[in-house]
């Protein structure tokens, strides 16, 4: 009892609220990464694991270019291009060489680990806001939130436009029904490669922003990124459906990916505030994602279960007697 009391009295509510803005800023940046995952996981129906690599590639390219004196805008552009290249490699491994989607992604991811180490020259490279002109930084969190939100809005509008075009439609139809797409003259291999390139470009972009935000690039910064991206997508989806039912349009669905990223980081903030060991954060991430993945299925099973029928019939049997 005494242990519990002293534990709860040691928790400082103010500490949670003072950490909140930082959580929100990180959440938005990871929500952007989630938008990249959204393209492959939701639209293309492709579980792409190369993002763990391309997220770190985005950070690594940005850091090394800044250190070598290039301006931040050029560093961001080259980061995105590097991500696009990574996506194309996964796409070619899958389409031209027939390697299953998950394996193709893992191969790119593991290859990128070495590539990223080569880019950085060491495992960690600091890019402090004191020495470099950055687009976003944790040194001014309110500003960072504002910038990240503006970037999200622009990206969502761009994605809404693109996936409404003729070419964007081919990606959606390829993901949903490859047989129909081929019958309608769509080269589904090209569609897959384009989608993977776009997705990894977006992921590398958010990796670049995250490296700037935290003030360094690290070769391990993308470890588990796919799970956090999925968390953003799925938390956002479950929440969006709860609020809008079936009426969530494409823009709302994407906006809720950002919301999902923020909520995920707030949940992480709570976990840390409760003084859970930081070593266990990946475990908590996995639990959170598993819960949100399970919720829609459990709900479906509840209304569509053998047990329910058995119970109903047992009940009516009793009443009958």
């Amino acid at each position, binding site marked *: 009892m005494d242990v519990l009391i002293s534990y709860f009295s040691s928790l400082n509510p103010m500490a949670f609220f003072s950490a909140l803005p930082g959580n929100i800023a990180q959440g938005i940046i990871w929500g952007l990464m989630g938008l990249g995952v959204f393209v492959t996981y939701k639209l293309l129906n492709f579980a792409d694991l190369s993002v763990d690599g391309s997220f770190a590639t985005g950070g690594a390219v940005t850091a090394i270019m800044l250190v070598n004196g290039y301006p931040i805008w050029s560093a961001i552009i080259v980061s995105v291009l590097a991500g696009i290249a990574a996506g194309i490699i996964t796409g070619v491994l899958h389409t031209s060489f027939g390697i299953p989607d998950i394996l193709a992604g893992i191969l790119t991811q593991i290859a990128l680990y070495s590539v990223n180490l080569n880019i950085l020259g060491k495992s960690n490279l600091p890019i402090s806001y004191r020495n470099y002109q950055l687009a976003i930084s944790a040194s001014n969190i309110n500003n960072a939130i504002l910038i990240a939100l503006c970037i999200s809005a622009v990206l969502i509008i761009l994605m809404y436009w693109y996936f409404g*075009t*003729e070419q964007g439609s081919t990606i959606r139809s390829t993901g949903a*029904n490859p047989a129909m797409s081929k019958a309608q003259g769509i*080269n589904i291999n090209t569609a897959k490669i384009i989608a993977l390139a776009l997705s990894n470009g977006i992921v590398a972009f958010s990796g670049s922003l995250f490296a700037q935000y935290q003030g360094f690039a690290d070769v391990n910064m993308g470890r588990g990124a796919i799970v956090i991206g999925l968390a953003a997508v799925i938390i956002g989806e479950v929440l969006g459906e709860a609020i809008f039912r079936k009426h969530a349009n494409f823009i709302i669905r994407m906006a809720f990916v950002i919301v999902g990223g923020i909520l995920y980081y707030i949940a992480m903030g709570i976990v840390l505030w409760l003084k859970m060991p930081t070593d266990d954060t990946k475990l908590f991430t996995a639990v959170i994602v598993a819960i949100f993945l399970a919720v829609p299925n459990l709900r479906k099973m509840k209304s569509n279960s053998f047990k329910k029928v058995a119970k109903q019939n047992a009940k009516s049997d009793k009443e009958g007697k």
Partner: protein
Amino acid sequence: MLEISNIYKTFNKGTVNEKKALNGLNLKLNDGDFCTVIGGNGAGKSTMLNAIAGVWPVDSGAIMIDGKDVSGLPEYKRAPYLGRVFQDPMTGTVADMEIIENLAIAARRGQRRGLAWGVKKEEKEKYYEMLKEFDLGLENRMTSKVGLLSGGQRQAITLLMATIKKPKLLLLDEHTAALDPKTAAKVLELSDKIISEHNLTALMVTHNMRDAIVHGNRLIMLNEGRVILDISGEEKKNLTVEHLLEKFEKVSGSKLENDRMLLAD
């Protein structure tokens, strides 16, 4: 219009499941032919349509559409010549996209798909009129997801998609087999109407002998990957089911085996 010469296709070559699906198949369709295709289980009906569509490459032989050899082209490159409706109503449409989006994708078959908006304003009116002619009430649900439609409605949409850009050849692969009899009749009637209105060349696989006799101007029967009967003109008009069964036994030397066909009315 279509000329198939001597095509062969064997599945699972060199294994115990080896199956010679197409065995030197020859077929020539004239412009405007509406040819129905019947045959027993595993006779090669669907395989023939898949060979024409390019779902996989044939082992040997040539497939000419409108004088062009397409046998070396992958499926998506043959699509501009073909309109296709499948047996499974789920196959021909994207459930998660709106009716109008599905139609717009089909309307661009064979065109470069760039960064123009996927569904243009003037298209909407065109599609409205087309759907209205179908008389299924779908013209007022153009922005509904196709997944909300019934099987028959989805087949109707697929049929419209297959013909929205006039194809050189329309391939109907048992496209009413998964529908209830009433809906099947309606979709067949719709198919007839579209084929005659646009003067299309068409191949229709069916397991219903009566449908095969009533529809089209030509009837072919496949057996063991080859055409064994080819009936057209006056002879086809006077055909009966009994007559057809008799002919089959005479040509093939065995009884017709097709569970669904014998059970069909």
